[in-house]
């Protein structure tokens, strides 16, 4: 069976470390696919003005384009340059939930993420996306420090 490693990118150094770890792991496996995912944090239960709603579709396209060109495409390209079979995805949603869902949908065998990249008050109360993922994931999760 081919292993499929899902990497959660977040556009920061910790995401980069997750990517490096995944690369290292993949190089030790015979057959391995890599799926790099960037999730744009978004909730359907927020309050917006009518004008924001009107613009929302356009903004979403812009957000996806930006995340693709700035974060996911360079990561995928780097993996391919290193000789790996790699693809990328950009989605909106709750980071932990979406990473897990996409991993399951795409047949991912494990998820690799960086540790919480933010620190502060909110994290103390709500926990980080990484924490949530570790607690609820349906596939094994590796957290890279």
């Amino acid at each position, binding site marked *: 069976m081919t292993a499929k490693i899902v990497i959660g990118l977040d556009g920061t150094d910790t995401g980069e470390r997750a990517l490096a770890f995944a690369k290292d792991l993949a190089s030790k496996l015979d057959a391995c696919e890599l799926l790099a995912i960037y999730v744009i944090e978004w909730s359907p239960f927020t309050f917006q003005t009518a004008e924001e709603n009107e613009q929302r579709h356009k903004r979403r396209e812009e957000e996806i384009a930006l995340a693709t060109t700035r974060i996911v495409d360079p990561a995928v390209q780097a993996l391919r340059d290193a000789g790996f079979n790699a693809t990328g995805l950009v989605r909106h*949603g709750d980071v932990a939930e979406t990473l897990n869902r996409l991993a399951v949908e795409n047949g991912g065998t494990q998820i690799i993420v960086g540790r919480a990249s933010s620190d502060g008050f909110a994290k103390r109360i709500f926990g980080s996306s990484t924490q949530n993922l570790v607690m609820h994931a349906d596939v094994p999760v590796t957290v890279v420090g």
Partner: protein
Amino acid sequence: MKNIAKTGLLAATTALMASPLAAQDAPGIDERVNEVFANVTGPFVSAIFAPFPGTEFPWIVMWLVVAATIFTIYFGFVQFRYFKHAIQLVKGDYSDPDDAGEVSHFQALATALSGTVGLGNIAGVAVAVGIGGPGATFWMILAGLLGMASKFTECTLGVKYRNEYPDGTVSGGPMYYISKGFKELGIPGGGFLAILFSVFCILGALGGGNMFQANQAHAQISGIVGDYPGWITGIVFAGVVFAVIVGGIKSIANVTEKVVPFMGILYVGAALIILVVNYDMIGWAFGQIFAGAFTGLGVAGGFVGALIQGFKRAAFSNEAGVGSAAIAHSAVKTKEPITEGFVSLLEPLIDTVVICTMTALVIVISQQLIIDPETGNYVLNEAGNAISTVDGNSGVALTSAAFGSSISWFPYVLALAVVLFAFSTMISWSYYGLKAWTYLFGEGKGSELTFKIIFCVFIVIGAAASLGPVIDFSDAAIFAMAVVNIFCLYFLMKLVKVELFSYASRLQSGEIRKFAH
């Protein structure tokens, strides 16, 4: 809706302010503006608010209630049959996770609600109960329940016939469904009616959605900090609104959009606390509501008086049939326009059946209305046109006193809530007005800026002067929107029925199913 009718406005304003606003800024000019304006617009206002011959029942109220009843029957009590489905849609059970990032049903509903929840729920209800007695609440709830079907009809059409532009932005509302829907059905006159609707919508936005709000916000602020010139409030409000709608300072709108729902929850929460503390009186209060609904319990006009007040305030509060909500709801991401119709029917429920009823219960339970201990009937004031209250309050002041009798500091929170509600209504209506404006004059930076500047100027005018006739006129303009909108809905409702049948059969067959989340 936040437009309470003229009686409510005058009562609230008089009760809250030590001296009339008009006295502050060049009274001569204000008086002349009032006079000229009243003469020009008087016939229009009188026509809209005219009572049926020999009664005091305004025909426009009947127009809205009859329409709501017809839609309810025509769609087979859709508001009850699809209530659970509406909740599931709002929860996102039927939303494709791959559409995440688009406008959700919840967001469209919340946006529309922030445009309707406000002064109507706080001041309008107090006026209804103050004049029509607790029995008005019963008729208000009934009108709210019926109004759910009107919302369902107009919001489904709003999404179905919206314009989607190549850049991904959308524009929708009655002007679009009237012109496109009539064309589809081969009925002439759609273009003209759409233009007529847009004209009324612009006038309603500048008046009820703007000047009235500015005026009431100033009344609230000056009621707490003391009297000061209204134009100061006007300039501040206009500045903030300008920053949001012209300057694109999203953060202010974002803060408001988050604070307003919080205020709404706080308001309902406070009402619930008062009800829980006085739980032994809830049965009695409902008894008063039911008894009053059919006997009037001594109010002016008897049970008919209660009925008129209840129907009137519900219509004024939830805007069902006015067409404004169809503009707000049309930005949702869905392949099925009717799903937004289902979601929108929750709006009159939340606005009227829940929030308005809370206000009414608190007023009744706090015993602000004076009852004759011998007859059990309500005691009328000296003029004989309203129920006597403990401190002679009416409108916002009555609601404030009712909450204040249990929670002493709540009137301050209420004042803040009124100001914020006023602000969020202005932002909502600036959008509704803008959509009507661009429908008439085309979309483009110059055209949009012109409207936005006019809108801000009207805020200052609204806050600075007590322009009774202007406000009467703007209320009338909002209800004129309902005349055009409902007239057209009668022609277009069969298109909604086609959608309803198609959706219902696909829902039953399992073609439309929940997504695993």
